[in-house]
């Protein structure tokens, strides 16, 4: 075996990569920032801006959650504690700023939330991160329930049943910026989204960020190369708490009210759902998941009372069939995209989409009719479904929806393998045929 030239004597791979890569990365972030600035002008429906603000908060929250789950392998059922605590502290800080003249303008309020989240994460993390895996999950559940139950006791901090309210109009101003209009709040949130996302991305590229991945994969081996898995988990946990707290602060600024619900199991469950649906293995995953989840949650709840059921089904389907999430699904097409073979997939995918929609209509129809029969609406005889008035107490619509489901399911059974084969073919390395 010949002696290789030591790496120091050759031009390093990183030098070339870093110059062009650094510029590209900066350009990407700049592009994202510009997109966020322009968005309210592109989508002009009045309800869009508040929903985008909601998405922004969810993005920061989900990204912070993925620091634990995707990056560190730690499944937490109580992450909303740091979100909620951050929110409460931000609300109290904002109230203090208005009452005592402390200089805390609205744009800096999320930092107060972040500090709150960080402090609590440092306290609870001290014993939560001793072990990972199931024990960690159970401790996080216990801490979450503990905090939720405590909220009724410490009512000066948590405001009891009504929660704590605040008012961003009463705070001191920074550069004369007011935040009375939806769009102004949106831009504040968008700013923080870009800043925190960049920070969390940068964190994943630091030594501790890389070692967190190693500890996730094999904590024993990480110990044998000099690291304490417990310390690594603790640092990740504190960082995640910091960013969750910032998200909570954004929530406080946006909604001007915090209640114990924001700290509870439902909120922790929601962030788990959206992060997993988006894909825990990619940085973009939680972002996509937060957007989709918030979108479905806002849009669907206008049309149906059982939107959570649909989200639950989507979640289970993801866990069972697409564990890599939406981001993973997209990345699956990367080789085909690079080879320029994506157009070939349009046909098979369209077939799958058609049959999927048919089956979905059937299933949704059956569910909606069941909901109709079981709920208080059942004094009426008909219900509007997909623009048509159906009578759930007769057999006809049931038969129709069941037939649609059957046709859709059979069609999927036929079309799905063809689509999978087409994808495999498109991904195949080598020249196009």
């Amino acid at each position: 075996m010949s002696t290789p030239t030591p790496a120091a004597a050759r031009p390093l791979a990183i030098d070339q990569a870093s110059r062009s890569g650094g510029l590209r990365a900066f350009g990407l972030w700049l592009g994202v920032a510009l997109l966020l600035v322009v968005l309210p002008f592109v989508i002009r429906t009045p309800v869009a801006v508040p929903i985008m603000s909601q998405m922004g908060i969810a993005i920061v929250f989900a990204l912070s959650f993925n620091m634990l789950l995707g990056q560190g392998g730690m499944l937490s059922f109580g992450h909303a504690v740091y979100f909620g605590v951050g929110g409460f502290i931000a609300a109290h800080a904002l109230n203090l700023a208005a009452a005592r003249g402390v200089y805390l303008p609205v744009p800096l309020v999320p930092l107060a939330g972040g500090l709150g989240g960080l402090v609590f994460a440092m306290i609870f993390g001290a014993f939560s991160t001793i072990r990972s895996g199931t024990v960690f999950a159970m401790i996080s559940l216990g801490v979450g329930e503990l905090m939720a139950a405590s909220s009724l006791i410490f009512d000066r901090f948590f405001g009891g049943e009504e929660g704590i309210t605040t008012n961003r109009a009463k705070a001191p101003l920074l550069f004369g910026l007011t935040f009375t209009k939806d769009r102004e709040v949106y831009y504040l949130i968008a700013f923080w989204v870009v800043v925190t996302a960049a920070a969390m991305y940068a964190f994943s590229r630091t030594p501790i960020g890389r070692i967190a991945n190693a500890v996730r994969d094999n904590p024993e081996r990480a110990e044998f190369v000099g690291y304490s898995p417990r310390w690594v988990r603790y640092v990740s946990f504190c960082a995640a708490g910091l960013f969750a707290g910032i998200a909570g602060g954004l929530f406080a600024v946006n909604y001007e009210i915090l209640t114990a619900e924001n700290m509870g199991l439902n909120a922790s469950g929601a962030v788990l759902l959206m992060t997993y649906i988006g894909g825990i293995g990619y940085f973009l995953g939680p972002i996509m998941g937060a957007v989709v989840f918030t979108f479905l949650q806002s849009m669907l709840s206008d049309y149906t009372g059982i939107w959570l059921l649909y989200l639950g089904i989507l979640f289970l389907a993801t866990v069972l069939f697409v564990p890599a999430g939406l981001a993973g699904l997209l990345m699956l097409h990367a080789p085909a995209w690079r080879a320029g073979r994506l157009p070939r997939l349009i046909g098979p995918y369209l077939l799958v989409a058609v049959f999927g929609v048919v089956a979905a209509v059937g299933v949704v129809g059956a569910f909606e009719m069941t909901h109709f029969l079981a709920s208080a609406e059942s004094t009426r005889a008909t219900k509007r479904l997909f623009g048509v008035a159906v009578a759930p107490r007769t057999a006809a619509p049931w038969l129709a929806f069941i037939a649609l489901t059957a046709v859709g399911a059979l069609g999927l059974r036929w079309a799905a393998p063809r689509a999978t084969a087409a994808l495999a073919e498109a991904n195949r390395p080598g020249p196009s045929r």
Partner: protein
Amino acid sequence: MMRALELQDVHKAFGPTPIIRGVSLTIEAGTRQALIGPNGAGKSTLFNLITGKYPVSSGHIRLKGAEVTGRRPNEINRLGLSRSFQVTNIFPQLSVFENVRCSVLWALGYRYSFWHRVNRARDVQERTETVLEQLNLMARRHVPAGVLSYAEQRALEIGITIAGGADVILLDEPTSGMSRSETEHVVQLIREVTAGKTLLMVEHDMGVVFDLADRIAVLVYGEIIAHDTPERIRANAAVQEAYLGVPQGAV
């Protein structure tokens, strides 16, 4: 000659079962030594005791003069001792490059830093690339470690062990499960990467042992029955009895 590793009357029992029954062993710095013995002798247990995975029941272990008995594995590693595993123990989802890089980070002083960008760190990059070239894995550096072939994973296993620059290396059956030609490559690799360092390896392949080792220690039922040069071990009656089961000369 300085003592790299010193075991003094080490005992280890799991419950009522004694596994290591009073092992005293001195490994001089700069030597390559092998630890052999029949199955169940306690070789892996001894490794686990030295590297801190199990606590000793009694006795002392010293690394380069410093007391390491009862210390945690990461502390012992930071003092300059690194080990490989018999069952490949890598980071399966990380790329080959990242596997080696993880082993380099602490040694180069980066610790728990969240203010450095790893991709920009020249020293990390240099060291990692050098090790990857020694392992002949540069071409595979972006592949997730979990999909490598068995022999490639074993090479990576050794790579992770030595990348941190530890000067006392413990290798646990580095050539297990390998073909003739793969073994030859690994032996060459071991010779290269342990040049100037102290090596203690557990091995069953006698060809490898006699090829690499300056001295051989023989562990039988938790006790060292011989610790000598290869020629004298070959001729040692007690060693032969332990392996063949029959006292030489008897029928």
